[in-house]
């Protein structure tokens, strides 16, 4: 009686081996077809936005901001 296990993982019978391979291939294809494709977003590269900026502050600075645009038109 041969107590040593064979190095082959699959059954010796070639027909069963083929069925096993086909099952594995189909299972892999089923898993792979569930992949999600990711598209690159169209957003600008950097979004610098502080959520702690209050509306009160924005209103307070609004008048000065308008003047700054008028006096620096070349960069705005």
């Amino acid at each position, binding site marked *: 009686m041969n107590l040593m296990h064979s190095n082959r993982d699959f059954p010796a019978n070639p027909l069963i081996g083929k069925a096993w391979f086909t099952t594995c291939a189909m299972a892999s294809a089923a898993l792979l077809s569930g992949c999600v494709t990711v598209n690159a977003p169209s957003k600008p590269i950097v979004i610098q936005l502080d959520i702690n900026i209050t*509306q009160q502050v924005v209103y307070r*600075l609004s008048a000065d*901001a308008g003047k700054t645009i008028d006096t620096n038109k070349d960069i705005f």
Partner: protein
Amino acid sequence: MAIRSSIVAGIVVFGAMSGLVAASAVAQTRDPAYAQARAAGKVGEEMSGYLAVVGTGTPALEKMVEDINIRRKAVYAERAQAQHATVEEYAFTMGCHLIANTAPGEKYQGPDGDWHTRDSSPPLRDSRCP
């Protein structure tokens, strides 16, 4: 004699003031490359108050945008200090105004973070904008 010298002094002062007005008027127009990039939608106004390249740009375009943003940041820092606010707060407020001032066809960043093309209707802005 005194009247004549005072008239001459007046003409000199007037001439100097005209020169000053002319010099400041030159700084009030956009660089032609910048104006062209804005009109073509190659650069856009971000909510943060800074300029950004829309899509893929050229090295020259990126350099131009970087130069403008450096100058904007300097102005924001100076004005923020005078107004006792953070640079980010001042820059965001400027962003509100700059997006409102965009001309039709120019690009701006909406509250959703995406680029929008300005048309004749008011732009989409953050709820904190005045």
